[in-house]
Every structure is written in structure tokens, then in C-alpha cells.
């Protein structure tokens, strides 16, 4: 049976009409037997009712002030976007996939065919950019990249077009790393990371366990996403989505962490560096 914390997430989704029929039935069955979750449900309903307040009228003069300021404010000119011809997009895509595969090949060679997941399971510290792309998944990147909107214009070194606002972070062309091969994987990774297909793929393939992290990004993530304070040595229980989000945040920040495979999704507030 699930812990009540998981049902609490379901109760919240249920109140918003965002829970599947199947999960709804399971939730009802659980609540019929669990007083704690019944109370939780009642409390959330009370909070919902309290938040359901009538809209306040806009103070007088609001629109007039907006328009007076609009009169003094210039609009930003849109940046021109140069679209790559289709054949160039495919060329760029092929180069992106080749980089990933080459990186994977070198990486495996340099580690005597051990995958990153092996390393993770052994509880060895390693860098975020490695962890974001377990080798077993990287093999699939080529296939994943081919679908739908190929992010050809994001490929490092091949960018020829300005992307429209909002500006995206520049993909890193080189990554400081002691081993060449992981650096290559990391260099090829940013365009893939922005691709929804690849992100979904990675999230579906998450391996459960405990993340040991203690850097700035991890601390900020705990405060912002969990709404909790950071305490060294504390174990935070996460949902699968949060675990994936934390992994993405650490990867994005290129912050070191350690992953220990296991049951459930956890973060251990650790000060190792």
C-alpha cells in the first residue's frame, strides 16, 4: 500500500478534477479506511472554500495609468529569424546524433564498457552531466532526436539562425571534465535536453533511489520546490516528478551529486563536494 503522502498528492489532484478515474477509485477506497486522509481532504476543502473569494474590482484610474505609460514606452522590435533550409536542418541533426553516439562510444571505451548506471548503482560520486544521460539511455538519443521538431538550430557549432525571444541559454560547447568522452556527451546534450521528446523519454526511464546533493542548486531547489528549509543530513521524500525535476535542476546547474539506486525517490541533504 502507498504511504499517505502519495494519497495526499492524489487528494489535491482530485479536488482539481485532475485525477484519473482509476486513481480516483483507489483513493476513495483508501479514504474510506484512513481517518488521517479524510481529515486531510476536509482541510483542503476548507482551504479551497476560503480561497474562493470574489474578484476585487480594479481601482479607478488603473487603465488610464497603463495607457499613459504605454504612450511613453516604445515597443521592442522583434528579432528576425532566419529559418534553416530543410536539408541543412537534417545535416545539423545528423551531426548532433553523431556527436552523441561518438561520445557514448568513447565513454564506454574509456570506462571498460561500464555504463554510467553501473557507476550510479555502485554509489560513486560523479558529475551531473554524466547522470543526466545514463549511457543505456544515450543509445536511444539518436532515435528520439529524429522525431518531430528536430532542434537542429540548437546544435552547437552549427547554429546559424537567431532564435526568437525569449532567449534560450547558450548550449555549452565545451565542458570542463577530466575525461574527454563524458565532456563530449555533455556538449551534445543541451540541444537534446530542450527537446520535449527526449525529456519525456528520460523521465520515463528514471531509476529510483536516493540523490545525495548539497550544492547551491540543490538547496535552492529544496526551498523553492518543496517549500522546506535545507538541513544537512536530512532525508527528503520526493515524488517521482520532483525527483526528475531535481535531477534536471542539478544537471542544468552542472552541480555534482551522487546517486544510489534503491526503492522510492529521496534526496539526502549531503555536504560532500
Amino acid at each position, binding site marked *: 500500500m502507498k504511504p499517505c503522502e502519495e494519497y495526499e498528492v492524489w487528494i489535491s489532484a482530485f479536488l482539481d478534477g485532475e485525477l484519473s478515474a482509476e486513481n480516483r477509485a483507489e483513493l476513495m477506497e483508501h479514504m474510506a479506511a484512513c481517518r488521517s486522509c479524510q481529515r486531510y481532504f*476536509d482541510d483542503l476543502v476548507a482551504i479551497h472554500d476560503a480561497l474562493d473569494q470574489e*474578484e476585487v474590482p480594479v481601482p479607478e484610474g488603473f487603465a488610464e495609468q497603463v495607457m499613459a505609460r504605454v504612450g511613453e514606452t516604445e515597443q521592442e522590435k522583434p528579432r528576425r529569424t532566419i529559418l534553416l533550409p530543410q536539408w541543412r536542418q537534417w545535416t545539423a541533426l545528423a551531426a548532433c546524433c553523431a556527436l552523441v553516439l561518438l561520445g557514448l562510444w568513447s565513454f564506454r571505451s574509456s570506462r571498460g564498457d561500464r555504463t554510467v548506471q553501473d557507476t550510479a548503482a555502485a554509489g560513486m560520486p560523479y558529475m551531473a552531466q554524466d547522470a543526466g544521460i545514463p549511457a543505456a539511455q544515450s543509445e536511444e538519443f539518436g532515435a528520439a532526436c529524429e522525431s518531430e521538431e528536430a532542434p537542429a538550430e540548437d546544435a552547437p557549432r552549427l547554429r546559424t539562425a537567431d532564435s526568437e525571444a525569449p532567449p534560450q541559454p547558450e548550449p555549452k560547447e565545451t565542458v570542463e571534465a577530466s575525461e574527454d568522452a563524458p565532456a563530449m556527451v555533455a556538449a551534445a546534450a543541451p540541444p537534446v535536453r530542450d527537446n520535449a521528446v527526449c*525529456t519525456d523519454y528520460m523521465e520515463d526511464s528514471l531509476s529510483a533511489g536516493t540523490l545525495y546533493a548539497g550544492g547551491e542548486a540543490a538547496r535552492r531547489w529544496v526551498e523553492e520546490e518543496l517549500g522546506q528549509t535545507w538541513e544537512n543530513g536530512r532525508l527528503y521524500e520526493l515524488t517521482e*516528478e520532483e525527483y*526528475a525535476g531535481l535531477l534536471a535542476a542539478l544537471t542544468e546547474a552542472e552541480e555534482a551529486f551522487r546517486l544510489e539506486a534503491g526503492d522510492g525517490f529521496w534526496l539526502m541533504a549531503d555536504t560532500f563536494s
Partner: protein
Amino acid sequence: MTVDELVRAAAGGDEEAFAQLVALHEKKVYNLALRMCGNPEDAWDAAQEAFLSAWRGLPAFRGEAGFSTWLYRLTSNAAIDLLRRTKRQRGESSLDDEALGIDAVDRTPSPQERAEESELRGAVTEGLARLTDSHRQALVLREVQELSYEEIAQVLEVDLGTVKSRISRARSALRKILQESGNLSGYLPSKPTGTAGKGGGR
């Protein structure tokens, strides 16, 4: 003119069209800002800034997410920026500081308005101010703006799973605040939600 037509005209510099967009959206934008900021003065400023950002950015607006979705994003971002600026001016270390909650209490309305509000409503408003930015943002978009998870995901540019987690965490945190202040007195505080107290290793 439809909203799309107004948006296109305003993107081309038509102030009259933009004035109509302001009239159509000012109530939603102001109320979103009010719930995010917790007081009318900051809400006014944040809502003004949101509309000005919209005006400046309209020529580049491509409309994938819809004008109102984009406008809500600008509004909640403006509110967060403003709260952070205010916080820095006060020298506070965190938005979640007690100070902000106390500040919200100080700003609570006149006795008559207070009487019209139930105690729980007042406490919920104060509690909202003590949530983290991302929790408050997600909860307000859901509870006040009544957006679906899909729409919230578009506004915040995050995935659906993150929206679900944030809203759930926000409610859980708000409940804890209300329990601590004795405003959910009809219910016994249940065991701590989340993971507090599990620390130490496994």
C-alpha cells in the same frame, strides 16, 4: 474585433487596440497580482508592470500559448520581481520570513472589512504570503484564476508533473501554517506531511 485581431493590431503599435486588451484583462490581472502580492499597493504596481511588459513584448509575441496565458505569466513574474525587490529593500533574507507574514497582518483591512471576512479567509490570505514564490504562484493560478493544470503548465513553462507536485506541496504547506495558527481548529493536526523528521540516513 476579436482578441486575436486586437493582439495583432496592438503588436503593430495600435494603442487603441491595446487599451481594449487592457479593459478586457485588467480585472483578472489585477486580482492575480493582488493574490500574489497580498496588498493593493504592490498589486497595482505589479499589474501595471505586467501590462507594460506586454506592450513592449507584443511585437515578438507569437501566440502559441494564447494572449491571456502569456499575460498571466508576465503578471506572476512581475509580482515575484516586485516582492523580491521589496524584500531586498527591507533587508529580509527570505520571502518566507515571519516578517512578511506579520507585514501582511499589518496591512489587513479596516475593522469593517475584517468583519466581513471570515477568520479562515484572513488566515489563508496571510498563509499565502508565507508560501514560497513557486508554490504561491501555482496555487493562486489554480484556486483564484481557476486554470487547468495544462494551462498552468503553459503559464509557468513547466511540465504537468511539476504543476501537480507544486500545487499539492503548496496546499500541504498552507494547511500546516493554518494548523499552527489554530485556524483549522476543527481538525486535529495529523502527522507531519512531507518528510520532516526522517533525517539521519537510511
